[in-house]
């Protein structure tokens, strides 16, 4: 009787949060990178006729924009590119890897980053958190020839924060801040 009464009373309260696992429904698609070389195939354009020169040297005619500045061991094209099949990459053990799976080449050294990337912790996943998530391969964000971190142009701060200047308007400068007390008009406020 008492249990029934308590039970009836409990109905009107919000049920406590249940910590049961929800099913994982998201699948991941990695953005393919072969379309980028489809318009300019290394083999079709040049290297089917012109065998690549494996000697390390300063490049003066072609690929001069590809300044190689990636670690101390990665000093020459053929470290990642397959010299007789330039539309592919290769692993250190010689396995051919298509450009779509470039991340496998990166993973040979950067295994922790790669592990994070497979879990979705590193790198950006867009699209849907529930259905199909779209993930980018490493070279989308990191130039493999010169992977050092880039600068971004920041978008302007919103009007109020711009008015406060670059060294003001921090977390402390909230609604009850001195700027406000000294008669800043409300209209400039967010």
């Amino acid at each position: 009787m008492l249990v029934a009464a308590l039970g009836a009373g409990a109905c009107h309260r919000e049920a406590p949060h249940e910590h049961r696992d929800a099913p994982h429904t998201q699948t991941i698609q990695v953005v393919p990178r072969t379309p980028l070389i489809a318009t300019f195939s290394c083999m079709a354009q040049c290297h089917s006729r012109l065998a690549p020169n494996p000697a390390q040297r300063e490049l003066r005619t072609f690929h001069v924009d590809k300044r190689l500045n990636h670690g101390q061991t990665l000093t020459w094209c053929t470290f990642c590119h397959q010299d007789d099949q330039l539309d592919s990459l290769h692993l250190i053990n010689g396995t051919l890897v298509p450009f779509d799976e470039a991340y496998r080449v990166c993973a040979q050294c950067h295994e922790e980053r790669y592990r994070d990337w497979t879990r979705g912790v590193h790198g950006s996943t867009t699209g849907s958190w529930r259905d199909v998530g779209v993930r980018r391969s490493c070279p989308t964000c990191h130039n493999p020839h010169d992977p050092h971190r880039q600068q971004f142009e920041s978008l302007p701060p919103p009007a109020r924060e711009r008015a406060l200047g670059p060294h003001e308007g921090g977390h402390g400068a909230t609604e009850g801040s001195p700027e406000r007390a000294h008669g800043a008009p409300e209209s400039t406020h967010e």
Partner: protein
Amino acid sequence: MSDETNGPYTKVSLAEGVASSQTTRRVFLKVLGAATAATSTADAMGWEEYFQQHYKRLTDDDKRAIFARLEQQVRDRQGVDVHIRDPQPLDGVEFAYALNLQACVGCRRCEYACAQENNTSRSPEMHYIRVLQMEKGSLDVERSHTGYEGQVPQQGHYYMPVQCHHCRDAPCVRACPVNATWAEPDGIVVVDYNWCIGCRYCEAACPYFARRFNFEEPTLRASEINPEQGYLSNRLRPRGVMEKCTFCLQRTRQGLYPACLEACPTGSRKFGNLLDPNSEIRQVIETKRVYILHEEAGTNPRFYYFFG
């Protein structure tokens, strides 16, 4: 003079006075009230809107009528066809957000994507997200700045974007005197813009400074209006009400990521279902060092910062 002697006498005389002029005064006040409501608010608001019930007491029919009215209002005022929907919380879903402090470069793309998605006022300019420029080696937000410009990341700084943390023990929800803000079953803290009285207690209660008040009529050009709108999220707001980040519920309850995440060029932002052990957000919390902003405030937020 004591109440025993004076009280009854006063009462009687008052009662007589009221009795004599009761009808006319009451009628007069009624007419005045109705006329005031009709004239001063009819243009801006309208009778149905003025007497609209709390969101939780609305029936499906009420909602249909309200959405149609709101869509018509936007058509009349801005000449834009918008679609107002009310996506419901999903079963077995609790949303959470994580932000990688080592990856964020402070470019503010998220701020502007948010404004675009959520129809926030462009003049006065309102952003739900504030990117704090922090001093390297310190987590002291009191020494942070938001007014930086130019190339980022700047030497000696890292960046911490702050938005609504959708707290489990949300001080804003407790502060609201009229229950105009509450946490939905999927964890999203929402505002009923029609029930909000604009007292700003919630703004004062929030330790993240995540709530924004419409001091003026929000202004947006017709071309800037996002026509896909949620009733509890990015529909056009009137003057005098609070608003805030809603994890883009008009997107996320349909399976999409929030607009800020989509805009991030560095992949710093992670979002997903906390109840799914294989979701990105759970992987972040289980495998990374996680920092909770103002943990000492006891708000238990659904927004996490992480390193790496």
